[in-house]
């Protein structure tokens, strides 16, 4: 670490962090691990930008998680968190720090802001990365991301060693460990914004609270797919999830068909989960779905098609109609678990 030396050109790591209810978000704590490792290997500093209101507490948390410097953009008008605010703050911060890489989570915010910033700075951007590495010969950062819906992996590098931007897929790494003895600086970001350039107005934000256990926090997830055949079949999925004190997920088909709400979708365009046990029912195993669950410890597939791709990606499989299999499975689990 070189906290006291002058910031070198295109060498530091900057994380664009996110705060939920005054706490650093889980995705950001994962980024902190990736960012800290990268900064250490480069022998440089780790900066974290936090934007919004009620983030003072989170800034000390960021230091405990490994930040050398926390840049704090709090108070009005930052609290509105319009995309253009982020881009302007980041554009200024990048001009000052000249970071080697700016890291975002592949979240609602990250996937929106990262490409805008790349356009503004005219630098390369890599979305949805699952691995960052350093090429020892060229000292280039190597960025690996799934392509073709997860059928293949591509490893990219930027041509020059100017600033580059990446988003990291959630749940591909463990969160950073917190250490309260860590030291760091908290620096306020000056509120100089070019407000007339902000043409987009946020009218409202509506959050749909999901009931029960949060998908991301669940130890067990039971997911239903197109093979369930309609809204009616999902009571069995709910019953199995309830028996295992787990959460319910869905693949793309039940979402597109309107059988179940969109906020339960797991996969490339939905939630990324990494539970201990992931049970799929009537899911064929498209790579776009597996993208959201392949990090699970143990995967079980129930599908009536013995050739379904899902069996190639699972640890345990049952070939058969879920209408027959699930009631017996639930009953047996209940009797074992209550014993």
């Amino acid at each position, binding site marked *: 670490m070189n906290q006291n030396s002058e910031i070198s050109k295109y060498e530091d790591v900057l994380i664009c962090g996110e705060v939920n209810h005054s706490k650093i978000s889980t995705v950001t704590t994962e980024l902190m691990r990736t960012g800290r490792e990268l900064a250490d290997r480069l022998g440089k500093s780790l900066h974290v930008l936090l934007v919004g209101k009620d983030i003072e507490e989170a800034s000390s948390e960021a230091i405990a998680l490994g930040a050398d410097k926390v840049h704090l953009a709090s108070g009005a008008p930052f609290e509105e968190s319009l995309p253009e605010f982020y881009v302007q703050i980041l554009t200024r911060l990048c001009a000052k720090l000249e970071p080697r890489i700016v890291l975002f989570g592949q979240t609602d915010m990250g996937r929106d802001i990262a490409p805008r910033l790349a356009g503004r700075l005219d630098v390369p951007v890599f979305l949805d990365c699952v691995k960052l590495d350093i090429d020892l010969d060229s000292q280039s950062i190597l960025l690996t991301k799934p392509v073709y819906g997860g059928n293949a992996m591509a490893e990219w590098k930027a041509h020059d060693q100017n600033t580059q931007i990446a988003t990291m897929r959630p749940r591909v790494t463990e969160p950073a460990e917190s250490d309260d003895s860590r030291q760091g600086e908290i620096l306020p970001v000056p509120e100089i914004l070019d407000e007339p350039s902000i043409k987009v*107005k946020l009218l409202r934000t509506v959050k749909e609270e999901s009931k029960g256990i949060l998908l991301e926090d669940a130890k067990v997830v039971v997911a239903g797919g197109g093979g369930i055949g309609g809204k009616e079949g999902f009571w069995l999925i709910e019953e199995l999830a309830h028996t295992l004190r787990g959460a319910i997920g869905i693949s793309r088909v039940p979402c597109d068909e309107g059988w179940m709400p969109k906020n339960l979708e797991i996969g490339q365009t939905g939630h990324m989960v990494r539970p201990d046990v992931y049970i799929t029912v009537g899911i064929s195993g498209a790579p776009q779905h597996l993208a959201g669950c392949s990090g699970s410890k143990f995967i079980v597939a129930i599908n009536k098609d013995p050739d379904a791709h899902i069996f190639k990606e699972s640890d345990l499989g049952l070939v058969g109609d879920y209408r027959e299999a699930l009631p017996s*499975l639930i009953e047996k689990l209940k009797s074992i678990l209550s014993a």
Partner: protein
Amino acid sequence: MNIVVCIKKIPDPEIPPAKFKLDTEAKRVLPPEGIPPVINPYDEQAVELALRIKEKSGGKVIGLTIDDEASPTVVKHALSMGADEGYVLTDATFLGSDSLSIAYILAQAIKKIGDVDLVLCGRQAADWDDGVVGSLLAETLKYPLVTLASSIEVSGETLKVSRVLLDGYQEFAVPKPAVVTVSSEVGKSRLPSGWGIISASRKEVPVWDASAIDADPIRIGGGAARKELVKLYVPARERQCEIIEGETIVEAAEKLAEKLLKTGLI
């Protein structure tokens, strides 16, 4: 309302994983045998959204694609769905362009088309899954941007755009002209009608090269690319699946329960 929809031709993303093949040496994906390329499904949904806006507010829908060859296939698809015009951008100097250059090429064409109120792009292309061109296009055109839209309402000079969040949605008011990227929540795209196919087949699809859109050679092609593909590979499969046997499904299901318990994870 004149709406340009940017569309891309890609290998069919719905092929079974077993049909997916690549040439790791050449770092490229091999086209699946006997399966023709298709319009990127997310772009098809952008065409769908554009047509819904046109039905309410009038104006025209214009398909725009960049292709390695002067092939009107995906533009014709948009026309057969109900789009009014379409253009193909093709030039040997476009080859190897990265996302920043692609956005620049599209921006040049949009300026040439002129009098555009709204530019729609799919949220990402289902081949390289980058999901950045629409946003870079907004930055290049200096138009306001909303990403991941599920619906757009027009009221005068303002667009009301709904943006999908993982756990909800946001609504934005945006002045025209704007760029909006379109999410899958738009829903199913319409099928081309018989009449649509006939009328599309009769329409001319102009082909523009680099000079037609006045593209600066410094900003396009492999020479301008800021990034390089180091490796392309199929990820190793780590799991070995044990299929549970049983005389009946009930018996298999009970065995499954026992095996699940033995993992110590539940």
